[in-house]
Structures are given as structure tokens and as C-alpha cells.
């Protein structure tokens, strides 16, 4: 059947069961938006205030739903505005298909208006890029792009269509093939033959070796990494942890992979890791990391990291093995499959003595009374009042670390945070995406005053689409995390980190047509949050905090993991 090339692009989106797109139109992508107009009953488009917001929203949608996010942008500045969002998705292995349009073939490479080498720019921050010059290849490219984004280690993919490819008079051959069948289409077949696409089976020998290593271990430690979340392996991981009867440390990206309230949890590991996690890491004799790449925020000093232990890495991406920390053993495969096989072969263990040594080091999780509002109080109010399955999107900095420390995440996709790239301004976009993809769930956006200023214009998107997102600002009037480093390492020289400036966030919220609250103590926070939950629209709560609040504990970058610069709980 012959159909318009642009219609084929829309049909290909429908093949993948895409119902929501985030984006921003412009000159070169006009043809695509014209087609979208005809498809508006089947594909919902969310117009953001800025392409970066659209990219984060598609990312947040993908992380919270486990489906592939889709984002549209025009050429030139539209495409370059996406780059922060693409890199954020890339570092956190989030499956997003970015679709941009470029100038026509005849203008390509001539520094034409709004022309830039989009695929060249995106190359280092995507799993794959496609420049489409021949309309006939549209179905194959689209199908392959979605397959690449969603399979293996997921990640962002960029497709750049030349404008002449999307011209309204271009007709191509097309036939609708649902995604689970189009995996047999010719281009994926070609990929399959060259790359041996298959349902992978982890190596049995590798599994047996690990089972033996576990049998000989007396002090095992498990790390729950982002791979558990992305691979939706939370159930099997929990079973594995309980069978192994070992403490479980959770990385930032692993939040949601293992219940935060589980008796085996030791909390976060690494730079702001808990005493329990970091000491366990230093003293264990077997470290099993699942879907964790030992970033420099976890393995601060690779030379002394888990120095008493045999290190075992379970990952889907072979390139992560031995990249940051040299390992003793590894198993390649999806977390779900590897852990299922391990669960079948492994007996129930009892490591009571080891647990009794580690687990009591955990800090009490109840907020202390204080006349001034504290970060822990704010988060405790959220934890107690918000529904159990509330999705939390954070930005980057102190509030991010506090959120991960004091809130509990119980399922993959409940915590949306920029762990690898550390993108300030990620949270609001991600919250929008999450709310679009999960209309029945409550979404709370936790942010700091610095981060919020970066992308607060997306409040107009929150208002326009009637999203009941609650933004909680940890307003300490400073770039808190940077100030913390300046306090501890740079002799209290607070160079350009004090944010003693507007706007008034309550008035800002009201200007966007949302509810605004300012709170200065716990009681006010409780009232404001209850009102925000009940008001039915989006709300902004400005929490006034002390400028010198710090994230505890803390280990300096590059130091051994138990050399605490700041201890837990101490003032």
C-alpha cells in the first residue's frame, strides 16, 4: 500500500503502541506536525515550554512506565536544546527515541538556516543515530530504532529526517506490522544476522562458579544497581537477597530495585552512602553487584574499593566489566534471567553473625524535633502523607541525596533521578512525563531552589494539561551541594553559590495559575502538603531551610569508602 511518508512515520509510532509524544515544533519539522494534526485522535502530543523539558519528559515517561519515550524537535537549536536531555537518558540507560528533522538534502552541510550536524552531535550520547535520506527506508529505520532503544542495555536513539523526506507528496510502500511481529522486518533481520540477535541465556558455567563462590563466603554484600530497575528484576532480586541473607546496599540508580523499608537494606552506598553500606563494602568477603557500573560516586577509590572481597559483576553490557573496578568474576545477561537461574541453584543461607555486625549501624529514620524546618522533616511529611506508590522525581544536589536517604522506594520507576549525568533541571520535566504516563498515581517533584530556577517555566505545561504535580522546593537560598564542598574543602569561600535573589516562588506558582505555599516549620509543612494533595491541581511548596544544612555522611571524592569527611547524624 502506498501512503505518505509522514503518515508512515505516524503509523510506525502506532506500531510501537506509542500514544504520547513530547515535543516542540519548528520550521523543518512542520511536515511531521502537519501529519500529527491528522493523527491527534490517536497520538497525544504534549507541548512543553522548551525542548529540554520535552526531552526530560520523554525520559521520565520512559523511566516510570518502562516503555519507550518519544520526543520531537526541529533542526538546529531545537536539536541542540535536546542534547542535555539525550545525554541524561544515555547515562542512565533510559529508552527514548528522539525524532528531529533537518534541512533538505540540497541544503545539507551548507550552514543553512537552523542547520546543524545533529547526528554528529548526538553520536557520543546515543546508542545509535540514523540520518534518513531515503523515504523508502522509513519503516525499517523506525522499527530498528525502537528495537535498539528498548533491547539489550536500553538507551536513547536519534532519528534525523531530512526535510525533503517528509515532503507531503512523497509516497512510500508501507504495511502495518505490530511491534512484536515487526521484529522480523528486513532491517532488524539484517541486524539480527550480523549481531546474532537472540534471547540470551547466561553462561551456565559462570552461574555455577558464582554459586560456589557464594557457598564459600561468610560476609557477602549485594549491591542493587540501575540494571535491576531497568530490567524490572525487583522481584527476583528480592528473592535472591532473602535467600542469600545478606545486607543490600542500593546505588542512586538502584532506588526502587529493592524495597527501601526491607530489613536487609543498608541504604545508599558511595559518596553519601550510609555508614552501614560503606563499612559493609570495606569488610565484606564477597561483593555481588547487579546492574551496577561502579561509577566514581560509588567506587570513589577503585584501588581500595572492597579490598577484602572477591568482586562479582552481573551486567548485560560486557563493556562495563572491569571498566572502573577490576572484578574477579562476571556473568553477562539480563538481571532477571541471571538471578532467576541463581535462585534455582542456590540454597537458603543464614548469615546472622555478619548481619548483626552490619545492620545495627543503620541510622534511625525518624526526624528529630526542631523549631526550624529540617530536610528530614519535609521528607517525613511527604512519606507519611503521600500515597505509598507515589512517584518521586528529583533534581540534583542536596535535596536529591536527602530524598533517596529518607524516602522509601519500593518498585522500579518510583524514583526518577538523574544519577549518571547529574542534570540540574531534570525533575520537573521528568515529573510531567511520569504524570502523563501514570495518570492514576501521585507524582511529587522534589527540587532545590537552584535546580528549580533552571526549568521552572515548565510550570506552564503542568498548568495547561491540568497535572496535579506537587513541587516541593528545598529552598536554602544557596547551591547547597556546592556550598557543602566549599564549607568542607574550600575554606568556606562561598564563591558564587549564594542564591539571594528572586523570584518569590509562591507568586511564581500563582502567576502560572497554580497553588503556592511557603512553609517554615513542620506543622506548616503538614498543612500545606495536605492542602496540595487535596487541591486537585498542581502546587508549589516553598520550604524555607537553613543555608548550612548538610548531607551526611560524606566521603570526599577519590577517598577510601570509609574515610568519612562527615559522620552520620553528627552536627
Amino acid at each position, binding site marked *: 500500500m502506498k501512503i505518505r511518508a509522514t503518515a508512515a512515520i505516524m503509523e510506525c509510532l502506532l506500531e510501537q503502541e506509542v500514544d504520547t509524544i513530547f515535543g516542540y515544533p519548528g520550521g523543518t519539522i512542520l511536515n511531521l506536525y502537519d501529519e500529527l494534526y491528522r493523527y491527534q485522535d490517536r497520538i497525544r502530543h504534549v507541548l512543553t515550554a522548551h525542548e529540554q523539558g520535552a526531552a526530560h519528559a520523554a525520559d521520565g515517561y520512559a523511566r516510570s512506565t518502562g516503555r519507550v519515550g518519544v520526543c520531537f524537535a526541529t533542526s538546529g537549536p531545537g536539536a541542540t536544546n535536546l542534547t542535555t536531555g539525550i545525554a541524561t537518558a544515555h547515562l542512565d540507560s533510559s529508552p527514548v527515541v528522539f525524532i528531529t528533522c533537518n534541512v533538505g538534502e540540497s541544503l*545539507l*552541510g*551548507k550552514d543553512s538556516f537552523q542547520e546543524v*550536524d545533529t*547526528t*554528529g552531535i548526538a553520536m557520543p550520547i546515543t546508542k545509535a543515530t540514523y*540520518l534518513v*535520506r531515503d523515504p523508502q527506508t522509513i519503516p525499517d529505520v523506525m522499527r530498528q530504532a525502537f528495537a535498539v532503544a528498548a533491547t539489550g542495555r536500553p538507551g536513547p536513539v536519534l532519528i534525523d529526517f531530512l526535510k525533503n523526506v517528509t515532503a507531503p507528496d512523497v509516497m512510500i510502500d508501507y504495511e502495518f506490522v505490530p511491534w512484536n511481529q515487526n521484529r522480523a522486518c528486513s532491517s532488524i533481520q539484517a541486524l539480527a544476522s550480523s549481531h546474532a540477535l537472540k534471547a540470551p541465556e547466561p553462561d551456565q558455567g559462570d552461574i555455577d562458579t558464582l554459586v560456589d563462590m557464594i557457598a564459600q563466603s561468610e560476609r557477602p554484600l549485594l549491591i542493587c544497581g540501575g540494571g535491576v530497575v531497568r530490567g524490572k528484576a525487583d522481584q527476583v532480586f528480592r528473592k535472591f537477597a532473602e535467600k542469600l541473607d545478606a545486607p543490600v546496599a542500593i546505588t542512586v540508580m538502584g532506588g526502587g530495585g529493592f524495597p527501601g523499608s526491607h530489613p536487609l537494606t543498608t541504604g545508599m552506598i558511595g559518596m553519601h552512602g550510609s555508614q552501614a553500606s560503606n563499612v559493609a563494602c570495606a569488610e565484606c568477603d564477597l561483593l555481588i553487584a547487579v546492574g551496577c557500573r561502579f561509577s566514581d560516586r560509588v567506587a570513589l577509590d577503585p584501588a581500595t574499593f572492597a579490598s577484602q572481597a572477591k568482586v562479582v559483576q552481573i551486567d548485560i553490557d560486557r563493556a562495563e566489566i572491569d571498566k572502573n573496578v577490576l572484578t574477579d568474576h562476571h556473568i553477562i545477561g539480563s538481571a532477571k534471567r541471571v538471578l532467576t537461574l541463581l535462585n534455582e541453584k542456590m540454597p537458603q543461607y543464614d548469615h546472622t553473625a555478619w548481619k548483626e555486625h552490619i545492620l545495627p549501624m543503620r541510622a534511625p529514620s525518624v526526624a528529630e524535633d526542631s523549631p526550624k524546618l529540617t530536610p528530614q522533616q519535609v521528607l517525613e511529611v511527604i512519606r507519611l502523607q503521600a500515597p505509598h506508590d507515589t512517584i518521586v522525581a528529583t533534581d540534583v544536589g542536596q535535596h536529591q541525596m536527602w530524598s533517596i536517604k529518607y524516602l522509601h522506594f519500593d518498585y522500579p520507576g518510583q524514583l526518577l533521578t538523574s544519577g549518571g549525568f547529574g542534570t540540574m533541571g531534570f525533575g520537573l520535566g521528568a515529573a510531567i512525563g511520569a504524570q502523563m504516563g501514570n495518570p492514576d498515581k501521585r507524582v511529587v517533584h522534589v527540587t532545590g531552589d537552584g535546580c528549580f530556577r533552571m526549568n521552572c517555566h515548565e510550570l506552564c505545561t503542568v498548568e495547561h494539561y491540568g497535572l496535579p504535580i506537587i513541587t516541593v522546593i528545598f529552598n536554602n537560598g544557596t547551591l547547597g551541594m556546592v556550598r557543602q564542598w566549599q564549607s568542607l574543602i574550600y575554606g568556606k569561600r562561598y564563591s558564587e553559590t549564594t542564591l539571594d535573589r528572586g523570584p518569590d516562588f509562591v507568586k511564581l506558582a500563582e502567576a502560572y495559575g497554580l497553588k503556592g505555599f511557603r512553609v517554615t516549620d513542620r506543622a506548616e509543612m503538614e498543612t500545606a502538603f495536605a492542602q496540595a494533595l487535596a487541591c486537585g491541581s498542581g502546587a508549589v511548596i516553598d520550604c524555607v531551610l537553613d543555608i548550612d544544612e548538610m548531607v551526611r555522611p560524606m566521603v570526599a571524592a577519590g577517598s577510601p569508602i570509609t574515610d568519612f569527611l562527615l559522620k552520620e547524624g553528627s552536627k
Partner: protein
Amino acid sequence: MKQTISVLVENQAGVLNRITSLFSRRAFNIDSLAVGVTDDPTLSRITIIVDNGNSVVEQVEKQLNKLVEVIKVRTLDENSLIGRELMIIKVSANKSSREHIMTICSICGAKVADISPTSMTLELSDTPDRVSTFEDMMRPFNILEVARTGVIALQKGGGKI
């Protein structure tokens, strides 16, 4: 039409990436590319063969000239250049076929570089056409693996880049 572009560049990290992205940006493919140091160890010479229209090559030549690390660019036309290519090829060989392969080698001027009970590794340096002919001749013997350098070229006569 195939075009040969010779580029003299500073020998440092990232130069090659900048040059190849000039081609990929315009979505055209490089047939072959060879980089080797010159008599001056701080300089490399890159020989690129592309199969594209004239105007495109002119565009790229201009863009190449703009790069800070590029010292000289020259497009060589087919009639005035001397081009050579090198190939190493591994073919299956047993007692009975070995002699046959040796005969073809001596006709084409190829040398045997390595031998094992089941294979032979041959090397040949010549014009690209003759290298391709030799490869075709080897095809019936079951080619295991081939590595070719792509063409390098100098202008005929006394002129230089």
C-alpha cells in the same frame, strides 16, 4: 567518479575525528582512508577516496582547509596520480591446492607471508585494480579473511603537496 583527497595534518588526537565528521555530516561515505606519518613525525598524511559528485568534494575540500590542524589539502585527479594499495589475504589451502595458489601468486607478484596446514597468508602491493583482480582469483579457494589498506597516492612528476 572516484576522487582522491590528500590531506596533510598535524599528528594529534582528535584530528581524524574532525575530518571524518566533515564527511559524515554530509551523509557521504568514505571508500577508503589511510593515515600514516610522513618524513616529519609531527605531521600525518591522510589519503581519502570518495565516490561522489564534484561539488560535494569541493565543499569538503573548503571545509578541510578551514580546520586549524589541517596544513594542506589537495584533490588529485585520476590521470595525474600514482596510486598503490596493499592487501593481506588469508585463504584455505591444503596439499592439493597449495601449488595452484602459488602459481597465481607468482603471476600476480604476490608473496607468501605465512603458512599453516590448512591456510596460507599472502601479501600483494599493486594498483587497486590489480589487487582486486588478485582477490577475485583467490575467491575459488575460500577466502578466510582480507585486510586492504585503501589507496595511497602521489602526484606524478616532480610536484608535491
